């Protein structure tokens, strides 16, 4: 089983207070940590587990700047065998279609049985690249995958639907899957593991080598004209309890009592 996994580096924003640049075109990332997109991490883990069971090779690919090699190194440390970085030069301000076309050009000649992407990214959350790739590759696909069973030349996968419901779907190989979080428990990689992975070379390619028409990527190829970011309006909002932690706890306890929270 040869598997290609698309990964993306994203800012870690869970515990961060975000701010927007003056122009309102992007968030201020100076104080943010960057990490592999959570969905992609599950995808890498799943690919490595399948390789460990069935043999084969895992290739990870990203579109990004030099810093984004960190997520490729992390994937290599988790057990991926090869890594490709498509330099972001020319791809800035691409929409998902532009990114999908770049990845398609870079992987179309690779022999693979499965291609994974995360179901979405934690930053823009378009959730588009995986299925656009499937269409460009003319391959069967399934999105939001939370279970994978491999039998001979076909796959049976579980898709996550709403309200605690799943759907069982069969696909012939090769196929494209977009991975939902919770599919597995991604392994922890140590700093040492990542250091070791530095010995594996990362293949670099870019706009010039990929032979894409200029008008299909970047802002020219995007269907978005402009984007303006802002912090959401506060709404009516919560009454914030203030004071020392002891005072706050007492106020909260009183609310809980008032609402019937006692044994």
């Amino acid at each position: 089983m040869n598997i290609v996994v698309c990964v993306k580096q994203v800012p870690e924003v869970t515990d961060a207070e975000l701010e927007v640049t003056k122009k309102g075109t992007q968030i201020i990332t100076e104080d943010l940590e960057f990490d592999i997109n959570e969905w992609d991490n599950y995808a890498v883990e799943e690919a490595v587990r399948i390789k460990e069971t069935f043999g084969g090779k895992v290739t990870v690919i990203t579109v990004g700047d030099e810093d984004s090699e960190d997520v490729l190194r992390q994937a290599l440390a988790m057990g991926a065998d090869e890594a490709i970085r498509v330099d972001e030069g020319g791809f800035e301000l691409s929409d998902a279609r532009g990114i999908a076309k770049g990845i398609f050009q870079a992987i179309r000649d690779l022999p693979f049985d499965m291609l994974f992407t995360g179901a979405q990214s934690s930053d823009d959350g378009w959730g588009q690249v995986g299925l656009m790739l499937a269409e460009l590759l003319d391959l069967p696909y399934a999105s939001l995958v939370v279970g994978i069973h491999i039998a001979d030349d076909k796959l049976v996968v579980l898709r996550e639907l709403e309200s605690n419901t799943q759907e069982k779907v069969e696909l012939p190989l090769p196929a494209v899957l977009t991975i939902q979080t919770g599919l597995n428990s991604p392994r922890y990689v140590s700093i040492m593991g990542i250091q070791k992975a530095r010995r594996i070379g990362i293949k670099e390619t870019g706009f010039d080598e990929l032979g894409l028409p200029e008008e299909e990527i970047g802002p020219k190829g995007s269907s978005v004209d402009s984007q303006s970011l802002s912090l959401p309006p506060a709404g009516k909002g919560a009454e914030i309890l203030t004071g020392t932690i002891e005072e706050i706890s007492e106020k909260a306890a009183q609310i809980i009592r008032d609402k019937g929270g006692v044994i």
Partner: protein
Amino acid sequence: MGEILVLVEQRGGELRDITFEMLTLANRLGREHGLAVTALFLGHGASDLAYKLTSACDIVLVMEDPELANYNADPYLIALDEVIKDRMPFLTMVGHTSMGMDIVPALAARLSLPLVTDCAEMSIADEGRLEVLRQIYGGKINAKLTMKPSDRYLISLRMGSFDAEAEQGKSGSVETVPAPSWTNLRGRKFLTYLEAGLEDVDIGSADILVSIGRGVGKPENIPLAQEFADSIGATLACSRPVADEQWLPKSRQVGTSGKTVRPRLYIALGISGAYQHQVGMKNSDTIIAVNTDPKAPIFNIAHYGIVADMLEVMPQLTDKFAKR
């Protein structure tokens, strides 16, 4: 007159709320811009459902075929491709659901349509450009997008963004369209639906829920949360990251892919409040939220907020009740 085409979502013989939510938006846009609203119903042997849509649109277009009995991306893509090429709607609208997320990117690639996924609000501006509001970075940032001019657009609409009204003052006609020949299917097969198995507790029937999120930090802290829940007679629930980590069973998860709950009191600890979570709990009578980020979206829908580390607040609270 231009047209807005809305893809009806149904499962197990029931229309899903997102269908009517989309029609609410489509009818508003239709009124503002003189566009007809057409609901496209794909299915097999369930066309009586189509008649439940006539009060909410101008035309219900029904395509029936055994291939369309249960949702399957392969035939759905071919059907949508045919209908869109035939009718050339200005706007095609699909739910940002497990179904819509499984269709629209491929459809956009196939038909070279400009696509915006996960729209929370939209309007049609000058020159017929779409203006769309999306939430990004887990709901921490609003993004207002202006699209390039186009004759046709494709969007997916976020669940819960509009009211789901079956009665929208319309009296639409029902028309049937023949199914296309199913050449070029790629071999995907629908096998079965799996409902959640036996659950240890039903969080949907609890009066009080203590719900924990990523802020719980590590599995060793779960017993502390359980202790707090016990002290006030609450049931322990969680947001997605906690279930993903398998620190609590999936049956405890509140949100779109888990359970929708409406307890008397919902205490959200270390939950930032992404919309997938909010959809599952925003109708609780009283919501208390504890989070370190004062701008966390959860504070927009909570009644009371505490800006602090849940791991500091929780033991204090447990003490107050355990002592009684």
